């Protein structure tokens, strides 16, 4: 692959990652969040495939397929399945959209500052895109603390995970396969467990508003 095509493709995939991250912070509708999550997973898979082709690693192409399957299909479907058709259209986040977007901008700047030692003077476009992946990780945190709805928190957790996975692929072409598979399995199980708990919560509390969780305190 020609160097400038590679750089453009990496830039495109990273751009889609950041764009979907910001849109996730902005949008309130859970159904839209799930679709955005799916697009983000596909962009991550594409990024892995591009890096794999550039470095001529067949293993990375297989991992790319796995990433697309898990992060663009299985996980969004799992989360989307429990989004009720009627409710959840307009959840009321703790942060209003304007404040959330300003926070997202600040976090992106922070990500660029923090990742300077990682980027260093590396000529590899993938390594130069690490700030985007770190920004995505921070946006995941923002979603986790800024949302009240249990499923919105779950989406935040997955964005966080996408960001960390992107850092791994950009800096080192992914982790050893054993770790990669184990980590994917762990994320899948955590999502399944949180789904079961959110279903139990809906039965017990009648809603998925996490502000209802006030029983345990000192």
């Amino acid at each position: 692959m020609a160097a400038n095509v590679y750089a453009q493709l990496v830039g495109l995939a990273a751009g889609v990652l950041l764009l979907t991250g910001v849109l996730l912070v902005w949008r309130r509708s859970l159904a839209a969040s799930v679709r955005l999550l799916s697009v983000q997973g596909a962009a991550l898979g594409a990024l892995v495939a591009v890096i794999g082709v550039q470095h001529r690693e067949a293993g990375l192409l297989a991992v790319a397929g796995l990433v697309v399957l898990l992060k663009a299909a299985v996980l969004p479907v799992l989360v989307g399945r429990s989004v009720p058709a009627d409710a959840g259209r307009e959840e009321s986040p703790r942060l209003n959209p304007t404040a959330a977007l300003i926070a997202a901008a600040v976090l992106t700047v922070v990500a660029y500052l923090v990742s300077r030692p990682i980027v260093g003077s590396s000529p590899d476009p993938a390594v130069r895109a690490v700030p985007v992946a770190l920004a995505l990780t921070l946006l995941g945190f923002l979603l986790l603390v800024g949302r009240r709805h249990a499923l919105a928190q779950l989406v935040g957790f997955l964005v966080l995970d996408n960001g960390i996975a992107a850092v791994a692929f950009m800096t080192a072409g992914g982790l050893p396969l054993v770790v990669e598979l184990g980590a994917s399995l762990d994320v899948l199980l955590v999502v399944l467990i949180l789904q079961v708990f959110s279903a139990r919560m809906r039965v017990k509390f009648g809603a998925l508003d996490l502000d209802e969780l006030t029983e345990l305190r000192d």
Partner: protein
Amino acid sequence: MGVVLWLPLGTSVLAATVSLRVPRVARLAGIAVSVVVLGTGLALGAAALDHRVVSAAGGLLRADALSAFMLVVIGAVGLTATWGGLQARSAPGPAALLSAFLGAMSLAVLADNLGVLWVAVEGTTIATAFLVGQHRTRASLEAAWKYVVLGSVGVAIAFLGIVLVYAATRASGTPTLSWVDLVTHPALLDPAVLKLGAALAVLGFATKAGLAPMHSWLPDAHSQAPAPVSGLMSGVLLSVAFYAILRIQAVANPVLGPGLLRGMLAVAGLLSLAVAAALLLRQRDYKRMLAYSSIEHMGLLALGAAAGGPLALTAVLLHMLGHGLAKSSLFVVSGRLLAVEQSTAVADIRGLLARRPGLAVPWLAGTAALLGLPPFSLFFSEVGIVVGAWTAGLQVVTAVALGLLLVAFAALVRLTATMTLGAGSRGGPAAEPDRSAHGPWLPLALALAVVAVIALLSGPFGTLLRQAAAVLGGAS
């Protein structure tokens, strides 16, 4: 010898499968796995004393003196909690999860790969999630949600840290997460990236280890889980997460110098002691009291790790064992108390020594161990940590920590006195005292006896401890 490393993992999978298939024996699954883990730990410890390092699976699994010691801790605490919490009948699901939990902790300490260590630590969250939420009440659901979300997010930060540690090795041409490679070739690590990675990894595992300020899930989860599970989580899971911090510290310190992680751990340790002391002072629930006491002891471990050096690190490892055994015994007794008294409020339990000496005696003995009264090993390990921190140049931190320890000590004494002392019955005719232990007494007696004598033994155990501390760079 490599096959020995597979024993704890294989037994845990087998026990989980069997307890799902044959519900009759499900109640024994946890005990069986604990016995195998303890036996494997002792065998590997003996090998480590001969200066043999056992490895398997192409180097993914490896047991040095430290791994062997941690495996002994997991087995011993596991045996106390599962044997002490033995029920007449146990549902197959929770029994299988308990076996998987013990297996995941064993994998965490046997893995010679920071990535596999991470996968195993996350696995412990997964295995315990339904155990915490087992009672299906509002409170236990809330505790389980917070536990899984905070636990997973915390560990995700650690994952980011591990990814960056991996990235720090890419300049060497052969990127690796193998702990041995990272320690033996410190020159290959890029210091700037490693700094970020190590800090994030320690931060993430500190969440899982219940260090303040990331501790908010701990009292909820540990008070809502069934007693044996609480005993395991408080007694050994926190230590396993702390073991990950110790390993990362051993990788980072030769490259970065001890300053960065020492600062982080000293702050986390002091904050944990402060939070625990403040909340123990106004605690009304005896299970939460035990949970906050765990935060206090994790704070002490953090202080010892911040100090570093052979004395403090040996004391940290001894403290893990002593605290694990004492805390799991106390959680087992707390489960029995809850079953007979139907309340977790300190105020509802009065005059226990007069009314129920069968429960009050182990409770008092366990609390004495937890308070660090001699001859219990926690006395010696606390002295070791304090002296180690003082001589390492952390005088101010140590002085503040001693003050906070004193507050926590007083609070724990007051709560225990409220529960155990005083007249048995208020006004009414004195009932016959209940001398039953309401469950097997032998595991509690064994655990507390071990805590009482272990620090006074030298010989092979002392050598193993010293070797384990030497693995962490505390070579003497």
